[in-house]
């Protein structure tokens, strides 16, 4: 994985000192909260309901064991002994003291990490495919491109006060594990006719109040024009994105209001100007970064067999293991969705354990997934049983990847000052109601996503089943949505009808899953049946 050189290190070290100075000025009263807010936000520090929340960047979701251990250390030393992995492959801590924040950033900098631009109206952490570099279905490792974008976007002087936050995702496979088209800019690496690697740009996707799937605006941007094209996309947005209403300020609204063609025309015009300006790193820079993402030294003789005589282990292998490009190896996803647990939470001890396993079995590498799980990307099949045993002891072996209890949930009213309803307790109750693994497996792939308000941090628009918590006359009310997808078959979920109580919405989920079991045809997932049968049939079952 990527390693900082002296320049990268100097940048984050300087940031720590700058932020230390800003916190000092805030604590001394030299900065008002209004003036301090954008500064702390640009360092990932939010003021939530009960305390400060610090969000730490995990660039494109890739971590070393040493970095992972530092995340455990921070949870232990500065927080309440746990951290929360997020849908943008980051981690956040919910109980941070302002005066500790500079020390935390210094600790992070010591392992080449930071919280730069994990919030604020700027370019956020670049997310990517959690199976990058390990899966056979990619045409290249997307992470060197993400790293180029990370460096370019860090402290970008022109794009630090955008109309609204800005999120990139980069993938290199036709299988989309990163919800790429639900980002402000989604990039898919592709080959052109000459066999050169380049970037296909999708601009103007997003969730929130007005969900949109990003349209493709350019089928190929060469590697040595990536930055000038991205700059052109951002400049048009920075100049013309709406600033009168924060709920209409994301780039998706601009692209929608201008129309895809007009937005594209303006970008191309800006690009024609900008590509003359020498904004792009030379191809040698991409080559330099790519070197850090070479395959680890795989054992070519590794056995392809797995002893599945332990039935619980066999279930985990069947559910949580994905195909690796190297025979004899596997990609193991560690589910952070235990029965009754909080989706995405992990204790310091669990984080340490995952770091140990990565060090021992996965070439020192881990990934965070956008569905709030952790991946050991390069594991020998013959080591899987030993890994599983240690995970199981630590409560980290739920065999529910992509099943109904592998839900995404936002922090909701338990933490968030924007929320209208609680998300976490609902996710917990659903995981209890559907605890029977046999039943979950019978239901098959089912992406359940829960948001506690219309800002949609829990991705309810992209759920096969989505739940949106709203406030209805002072009580929490949950709307049910069906038919969304954040994958390569991206689609937006639709609301079924009137909302429910907490228990009522769980009953409604059972109703729709029962209908699926009754109606499904051979090989159909829930989403497939829904698409074939249509909303009306599901509505009828729910509302009678």
């Amino acid at each position, binding site marked *: 994985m990527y390693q900082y*050189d002296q*320049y*990268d290190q*100097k*940048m984050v070290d*300087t940031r720590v*000192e*700058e932020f230390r100075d*800003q916190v000092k000025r805030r604590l001394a009263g030299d900065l008002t909260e209004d*003036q301090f807010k*954008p*500064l702390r936000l640009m360092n990932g520090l939010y003021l939530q309901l009960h305390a400060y929340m610090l969000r730490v960047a995990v660039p494109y979701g890739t971590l070393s064991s040493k970095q992972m251990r530092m995340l455990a250390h921070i949870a232990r030393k500065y927080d309440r002994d746990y951290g929360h992995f997020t849908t943008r492959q980051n981690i956040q801590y919910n109980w941070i003291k302002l005066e500790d924040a500079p020390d935390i950033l210094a600790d992070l900098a010591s392992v080449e990490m930071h919280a730069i631009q994990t919030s604020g*109206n700027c370019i956020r952490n670049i997310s990517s495919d959690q199976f990058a570099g390990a899966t056979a279905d990619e045409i290249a490792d997307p992470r060197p491109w993400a790293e180029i974008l990370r*460096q*370019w976007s*860090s*402290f*970008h*002087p*022109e*794009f*630090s*006060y*955008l*109309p609204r936050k800005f999120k990139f995702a980069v993938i290199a496979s036709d299988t989309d594990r990163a919800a790429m088209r639900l980002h402000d800019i989604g990039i898919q690496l592709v080959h052109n006719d000459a066999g050169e690697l380049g970037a296909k740009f999708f601009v103007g996707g997003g969730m929130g109040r007005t969900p949109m799937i990003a349209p493709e605006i350019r089928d190929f941007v060469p590697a040595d024009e990536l930055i000038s094209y991205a700059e052109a996309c951002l*400049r048009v947005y*920075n*100049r013309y994105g709406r*600033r009168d209403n924060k709920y209409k300020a994301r780039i998706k609204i601009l692209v929608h209001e201008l129309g895809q063609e007009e937005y594209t025309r303006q970008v191309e015009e800006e690009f024609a*100007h900008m590509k003359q*300006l*020498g*904004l792009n*790193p*030379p191809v*040698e*820079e991409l080559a*330099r970064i790519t070197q850090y993402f070479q395959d680890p030294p795989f054992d070519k003789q590794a056995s392809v067999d797995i002893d599945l005589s332990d039935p619980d282990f066999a279930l985990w292998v069947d559910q949580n293991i994905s195909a690796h490009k190297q025979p004899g190896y596997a990609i193991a996803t560690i589910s952070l969705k235990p029965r009754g647990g909080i989706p995405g939470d992990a204790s310091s001890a669990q984080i340490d354990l995952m770091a140990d396993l990565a060090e021992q079995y996965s070439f020192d590498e881990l990934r965070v997934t956008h569905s709030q799980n952790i991946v050991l990307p390069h594991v020998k099949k013959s080591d899987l049983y030993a890994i599983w045993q240690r995970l199981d002891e630590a409560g980290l072996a739920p065999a529910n990847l992509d099943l109904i209890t592998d839900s995404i949930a936002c922090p909701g009213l338990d933490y968030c000052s924007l929320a209208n309803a609680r998300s976490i307790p609902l996710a917990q109750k659903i995981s209890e109601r559907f605890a029977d693994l046999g039943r979950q497996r019978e239901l098959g792939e089912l992406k359940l996503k829960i948001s506690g308000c219309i800002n949609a941090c829990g991705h309810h628009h992209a759920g096969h089943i989505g739940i949106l918590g709203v406030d209805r006359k002072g009580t929490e009310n949950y709307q049910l949505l069906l038919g969304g997808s954040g994958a390569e078959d991206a689609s937006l979920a639709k609301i079924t009808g009137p909302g429910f109580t907490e228990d009522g919405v769980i009953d409604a989920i059972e109703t729709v899953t029962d209908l699926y079991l009754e109606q499904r045809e051979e090989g159909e997932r829930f989403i497939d049946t829904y698409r074939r049968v249509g909303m009306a049939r599901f509505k009828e079952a729910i509302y009678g």
Partner: protein
Amino acid sequence: MGNTIRFRDDEVHEEPAVALDSFLDQSNATAVRIEAGEDARVLLPYLDRLSLIEIDFPVFGDGRGYSAAQILRESGYTGELRASGDVLLDQCAHMRRCGFDAFSPDSPINPQLMEEAISRYEHVYQATSDQRKPIWSIRHG
């Protein structure tokens, strides 16, 4: 103009900056002020005769002025580029990188603190109109 901090050696421009509309109506003005929503590109035909362009920041979070400044510098403007309005200490470094070389903040900024803020980062990741060498360029000579 007592509060203006300049990073230029030339004489302070005496003529007050006029609003963009007025500027476009008169042929001899040499200083203009543009508001956040105005298109800096309409000034491109006049860059040779301009010696002061003031760009207003109505609130510090409105970042349109950064792009306006970049566009003017990219187009060859070499006169004074002044940031006015809600200009705060912690935004000055980015403004410098986008080509601003004078600051006229609503609330005065200690010039020494500004100097420190601007020179804090030894290196930069991007090529911008300030012509500093980005890290990728240092890496590859």
